[in-house]
């Protein structure tokens, strides 16, 4: 059991999931490149960071590993950046897809867009929480 997280916090997270999904559905109903979409996304971001900063820190499981041990992850990030750049500098975009253009295709589905927004909020909570 995670001592710092506790069952209460985990239960609260699952309880909030339907409300978060409903909010995400509404937020991703807004048309891109509009003021309301910008306002809702930025306000959500600020609120998520504020909430996450107030949550107890996540338990590291007693393991504190330095960044030097993360060379594999650094290699993955660099490979992804290089591949993305190779696609980005070539046209047409349909033949040379970037992650953004692929996301545009996938996010055409409102349901997937909603799931993406929920994941984005969850990631923000994790980052803000430390």
């Amino acid at each position: 059991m995670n001592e710092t997280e506790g069952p209460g916090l985990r239960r609260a997270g699952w309880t909030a999931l339907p409300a978060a999904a409903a909010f995400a559905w509404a937020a991703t109903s807004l048309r891109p490149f509009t003021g309301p979409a910008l306002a809702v996304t930025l306000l959500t971001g600020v609120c998520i960071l504020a909430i996450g900063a107030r949550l107890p820190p996540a338990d590291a499981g007693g393991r504190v590993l330095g960044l030097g041990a993360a060379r594999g992850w650094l290699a993955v990030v660099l490979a992804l950046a290089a591949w993305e750049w190779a696609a980005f500098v070539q046209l047409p975009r349909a033949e040379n897809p970037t992650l953004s253009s692929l996301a545009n295709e996938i996010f055409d589905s409102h349901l997937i867009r909603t799931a993406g927004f929920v994941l984005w909020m969850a990631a923000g909570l994790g980052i803000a929480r430390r």
Partner: protein
Amino acid sequence: MSREIFIAGYLLIAATAAGIQAAARLTGRIPTLGETVSAVNRTWMGRWTLCALWLWAGWHFFVRAQWG
């Protein structure tokens, strides 16, 4: 053809990441993605960079998107 190659590359990178994550969980000798993010998050600059990247991702994928 180029499209398939690029998508295969993205999938290969994702599979590599999944492999590293699995190896980290099984062996405990290398950090998981979460532990790596936590390590970055412990520094002032890393924390601000992660928060900025996360906000940028929300703006990029949900505001400046071309779906709908």
